[in-house]
């Protein structure tokens, strides 16, 4: 799956703030479709953020994270032009990744 990740990483002083938005249904497994059948759980399990060969943040998500999940965090280090890699994998084994430039 490609093109699901949008990320904005902004460096300010010695800190980089990262905001990311991933397109994903995040089906909880508790919602029924129009025919009254349960839609099986389909959600992202792990999102990893890497900078300079180091994992700077890991999200572990259950089905109670909202559709098209958003997350924001900050880490020390990171300069304008550095690469920030984002990757995710869901409970069906689907995955995507993206390398963004820190602004």
């Amino acid at each position, binding site marked *: 799956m490609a093109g699901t990740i949008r990320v904005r990483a902004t460096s300010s002083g010695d800190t980089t703030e990262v905001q990311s938005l991933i397109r994903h249904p995040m089906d909880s*497994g508790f919602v029924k479709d129009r025919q009254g059948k349960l839609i099986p759980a389909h959600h992202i399990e792990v999102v990893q953020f890497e900078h300079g060969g180091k994992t700077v943040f*890991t999200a572990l998500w259950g089905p*109670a994270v909202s559709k098209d999940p958003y997350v924001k*965090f900050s880490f020390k280090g990171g300069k304008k032009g550095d690469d920030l890699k984002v990757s995710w994998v869901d409970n069906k084994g689907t995955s995507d990744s993206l390398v963004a430039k820190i602004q």
Partner: protein
Amino acid sequence: MNEFSDAHNVARRTILKGAIAGSLVGLGFDTFPFPAFADADAKHWPGDAFKQKSEADALKALYGKSAQASDKVSLDAPEIAENGAVVPIAVTSTLPKVTGIAILVLENPNVLAAAYKIPEGTQASVSNRIKMAKTSKVVAVVESGGKLYSATKEVKVTVGGCGG
């Protein structure tokens, strides 16, 4: 999801991964310029913790201990959430050596909503959006220096986010 289908999914995933890796090697793609470091890996996902029905059980499964209330954990959540499908939650802490942050919704079918690993150099602060089935206490848990600290806030939900 029951134990059987979980095991089945994991087995299927492993087989698929093996098949993909095998086919790439076979085609001479083993030197393909993959990114320098590994992608997110589902084997790090604490599936057991996400199945628990109580705060105590979820924290035990995730961290192996229980939490004590602390005013050094700050939980920012709305008093009233009109739409339970999208409830913005932010957790920050002034505690030292924070290694993890978890968000639990006590009235959800499974209480653990999200957990974050905070390596050294990353701030003890996270914002995200979660689903709430109904009005519930939301608990933010911060792991600091090997101990767990929590803050709790009740969020009233007008329209639930887990129903049909």
